[in-house]
């Protein structure tokens, strides 16, 4: 089973939920940090890293000897990633989406492919928990291909918990698509609710069942509860604001470490999700 933890708004507690749940379950569980722009789960899990791998995407190089500047590659490229300037052909690797169209269309076979680095994937473990995260290269614009690569580490016989990036556009979709359940973490504020509605819209497009966690549940107003009632989305957990929790988070400590009684709540959360999915 794959559970993706998403939110719309940033900073609502996705990583907290993902890490506490994964550590509470403890064995036969994978934690995949798909917030590759700003991965944070490792700061709470402190996994032993076993492998680091550079992830690349193919981009074109042009053999200028062979190129006769016919312009067919420029024509097919939808991303303006290859242009003719005077009598040179110039690929812009940063803009390339790696579709391979330019190579396919070149009549004189002047185009081959090289690699652009997207970032790194590290995988490791902490006891029975398998840990994987992606780390986007600074300056790299496209995170979805790296997120998809992180997701290839999912093993079908294990529970995989995905820490998704914020937002509702392509990176989040890459982190949620094909999951069995999406856990949406929100806060009961106007920003939290507005972005939650967008996140629910994205989950609906993908047709995945979802549930809510309301974090800092005593700061704000009741509109999130009203929204949950209206839409029939189940509220699976409420976490009140406690300075102790906020301070633990600031140090990189898990809730279940400072308040062990929460472990049972996270295990129950998992059981509830299983009951919804199966």
């Amino acid at each position, binding site marked *: 089973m794959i559970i993706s933890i998403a939110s719309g708004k940033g900073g609502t507690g996705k990583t907290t939920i993902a890490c506490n749940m994964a550590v509470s379950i403890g064995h036969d569980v994978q934690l995949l940090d798909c917030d590759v722009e*700003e991965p944070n789960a490792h700061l709470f899990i402190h996994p032993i890293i076993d492998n680091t791998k550079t992830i690349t995407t193919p981009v074109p190089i042009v053999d200028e000897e062979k190129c006769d500047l016919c312009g067919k590659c420029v024509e097919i490229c939808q991303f303006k990633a290859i242009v003719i300037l005077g009598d040179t052909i110039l690929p812009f690797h940063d803009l390339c989406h790696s*579709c391979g169209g330019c190579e*396919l269309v070149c009549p004189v076979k002047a185009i081959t492919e090289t690699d652009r680095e997207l970032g790194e994937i590290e995988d490791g473990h902490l006891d029975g928990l398998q840990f994987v995260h992606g780390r986007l290269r600074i300056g790299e614009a496209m995170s979805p291909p790296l997120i998809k690569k992180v997701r290839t580490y999912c093993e079908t016989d294990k529970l995989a918990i995905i820490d998704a990036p*914020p937002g509702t556009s*392509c990176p989040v979709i890459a982190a949620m698509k094909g999951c069995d359940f999406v856990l949406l973490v929100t806060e009961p504020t*106007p920003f939290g609710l507005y972005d939650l509605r967008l996140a629910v819209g994205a989950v609906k*497009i993908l047709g995945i069942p979802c549930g809510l966690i309301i974090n800092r549940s005593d700061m704000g107003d009741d509109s999130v509860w009203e929204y949950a009632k209206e839409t029939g989305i189940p509220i699976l957990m409420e976490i009140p604001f406690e300075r102790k929790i906020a301070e633990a988070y600031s140090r990189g400590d898990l809730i279940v470490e400072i308040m062990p009684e929460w472990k049972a709540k996270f295990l129950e959360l998992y059981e509830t999700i299983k009951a919804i999915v199966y």
Partner: protein
Amino acid sequence: MKELVIISGKGGTGKTSLVAAFASLSNNHVLCDADVDASDLHLILDPQIKKQQDFISGNSAFIENEKCTQCDICRDLCRWDAINENYVVDQIECEGCGVCVHFCPEQAIAFPENHCGEWFISETRFGPMVHARLKIAEENSGKLVSIVRQESKALAEERNIDLMLTDGPPGIGCPVIASLGGATAVLIVVEPTVSGKHDMERVLQLANHFKIPALVCINKFDLNIEQTLEIEAFSRKNNLTTIGRIPFDSKFTKAMVEGKTIIEFNNNSESSQAIRDIWKFFEDRFQLMGG
């Protein structure tokens, strides 16, 4: 014409609340909401939309069944495996590269443009604002960010306004890169947590990569004084100016619930005072910066 872009790396550190507070302190500016994916600034500023425009960007492939001979060329060439065995294109997977369209021997694949959202020019009680709404699950957020910034700039020039206040998106990817280019400076809003510091370091590397000067301010600084001191030490070591500390204050949430900036909600609170000091510092400093 100068532009301050407020970013954070990590989401939820208080970017939007701070931009809104700045808006109520600054006299003459254009507001630009560059967080087009999950924009929230409008929830405080209640913009009255004066102009609305569609955001059309990219294309998507659609196979016309009656023309398709099921030759499979499109399925072989598609690098996103976006075309299933029934020759239907998965619109979420389709990258819009047009390779299938080009190589289909039957010209059976249509390639219409995508309507990805809207952008708006509005008026607020704190001056003009340019903002946008990217449709859910859409791509090209970077392009929409560029449009919103260009339109803000054009509006500022038209009205003889020399400051743009831009609410940036979280992360370090495509929309953030699009919100940085050509900015006078970025203000990184960081919270004193291990994640906040980690993410600030990455977004700072990004700002350095594009050679944009960066300033730092620490929100909820009293949540963890040790982390606050570490962030300040890190800033000094990297020649970054920390322009202020804002205390943890539940009034931010209360102000938000009422649709007000913290300055409007409680002008005398410690947090409002801290933000006024930051704004003052920033105004003095900004005079000296290029743009």
